[in-house]
């Protein structure tokens, strides 16, 4: 019986996020325009400047446009993870978060359900972007679409957990833009989304190289990159899973009134 109760609660939260997303269809458009611009304008422009040699998982020379697709899928997941976080802050300001947290379900489970809802939306948007890639005739193997599903899901969960964690510390919507700048841009640019690690090392940017190596977003991108070509990257999976667990546990701790939230909360009006 409790399992049915859990399932009903989780499905309700996922359904609500879907309905909200449906009401804000512009979100899908902006989620697609951003990576599409990178794919069509940036990648096409730099096609002949960035030569990408044959590195795993690729078995042959690939065009830069193809190289950049996993990074842009990661970008879709990253932005939606942060968007989910923004929606949590909005819910808190509107009082809806309070309603959620006073539901008779374990708090960690309610937060996990929120995370699942955000992840489902992230993955759906990532697939919409893959459709766009197909329209622009960027050569991604068709079977890769299927292999990439678990990789994008776990990647979406990691970035969603990070968003959840950020929502603990960001108390007002106005502070959110700044926080996003400090998280999204460094995470995206100091990663393998736009250029492979060896390029960074070769160009002498040793510090950036090491930072990119440990950046969990790099591992989300690499996990997706390998999966798209039917290959498995164990190291990236381990990093992504560990980062997901850490971010999520810290977020749950932050929402626990006994440990984190009470200390950080302002006096209620």
């Amino acid at each position, binding site marked *: 019986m*409790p399992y*049915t*109760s*859990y399932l*009903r*609660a989780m*499905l*309700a*939260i996922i*359904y*609500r996020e879907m*309905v*909200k997303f449906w*009401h804000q269809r512009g979100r899908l458009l902006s989620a697609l325009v951003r990576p599409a611009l990178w794919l069509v304008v940036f990648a096409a422009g730099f096609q002949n400047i960035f030569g990408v040699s044959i590195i795993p998982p690729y078995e042959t020379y690939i065009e830069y446009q193809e190289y950049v697709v996993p990074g842009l899928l990661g970008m879709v997941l990253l932005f939606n993870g942060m968007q989910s976080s923004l929606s949590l802050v909005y819910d808190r300001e*509107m*009082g*809806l978060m*309070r*309603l*959620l*947290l*006073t*539901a*008779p*379900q*374990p*708090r960690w489970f*309610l937060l996990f359900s929120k995370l699942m809802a955000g992840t489902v939306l992230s993955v759906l948007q990532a697939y919409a972007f893959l459709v766009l890639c197909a329209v622009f005739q960027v050569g991604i193997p068709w079977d890769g679409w299927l292999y990439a599903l678990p990789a994008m899901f776990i990647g979406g969960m990691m970035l969603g957990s990070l968003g959840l964690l950020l929502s603990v510390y960001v108390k007002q919507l106005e502070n959110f833009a700044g926080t996003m700048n400090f998280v999204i841009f460094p995470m995206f640019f100091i990663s393998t989304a736009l250029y492979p690690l060896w390029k960074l090392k070769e160009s002498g940017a040793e510090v950036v190289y090491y930072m990119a190596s440990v950046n969990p977003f790099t591992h989300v991108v690499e996990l997706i990159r390998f999966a798209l070509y039917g290959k498995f990257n164990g190291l990236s999976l381990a990093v992504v899973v560990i980062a997901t667990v850490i971010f999520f546990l810290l977020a749950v701790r932050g929402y626990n*009134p*006994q440990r984190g*939230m*009470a200390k950080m*909360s*302002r*006096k*209620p*009006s």
Partner: protein
Amino acid sequence: MNNQTTTPTASPVALSVKNVHKSYGKTKALDDVSFDLQQGFYALLGPNGAGKSTLFQLLTGLFVPDTGSIEVSGIDISKRLTNALANIGIVFQQPALDLDLTVQANLTFHGRLRGMSTHEIKERSHDELSRLKIDDIANKTCRTLSGGNRRKVELVRALLGRPKVLLMDEATVGLDPASRDLLMNYVHELCVERKMSVLWATHLIDEAEQAEQVLVLNKGKLLEQGNAEQLCIKTQTDNLLDAFLQLSGETVKPTETRQI
């Protein structure tokens, strides 16, 4: 103060608050607050900043007390929060409806969060909406509703889980007098009919006067508990407002709206 004053009916304790302290930094929001609620309509009377909202945050597990304990139907909220929350219905001071969803969708979402089946949710929400004579708005988007109807929907939502304890945190703020009376009378009716314990936080004297018991809270301290008449006798005053002023030592002049 004596917390053992006469309670509305001799029934089991639905909500028990014992020696609760809560501070925000150096500010004491609640200072050694203790009371027991049985079945009946209780008003929590206090001016803005008295600690009413803090108390409600503690009762719903959003915050934890620095010291002291809270039990809902005998369940310690610090140990079994989920079970305790299953017995509570709450209407927060700040309206919390998803404005882009319909009334029914809001109720369904809340019911499902409580683990209720679709059938149960539909049946109960239809019953509650009909009783409040607002069943015609079930498919309307909440954004299109008047303030009064939004509050009624929030009350229906709080009642969906058939709570033993109903917490109303200044639920009539912003409502016109007619809507206020309607909401209050309805909760009074439910209180008797469903044998609920209602804690109605307010800073309006007229609302507190209608309660079977009044808990007077000021500056985080529970000053007194009793019905309006008992409080007047204790303070040797003629009305509840004067009784409050006497108890709290405040010098606020009575206003036409009879707010504290």
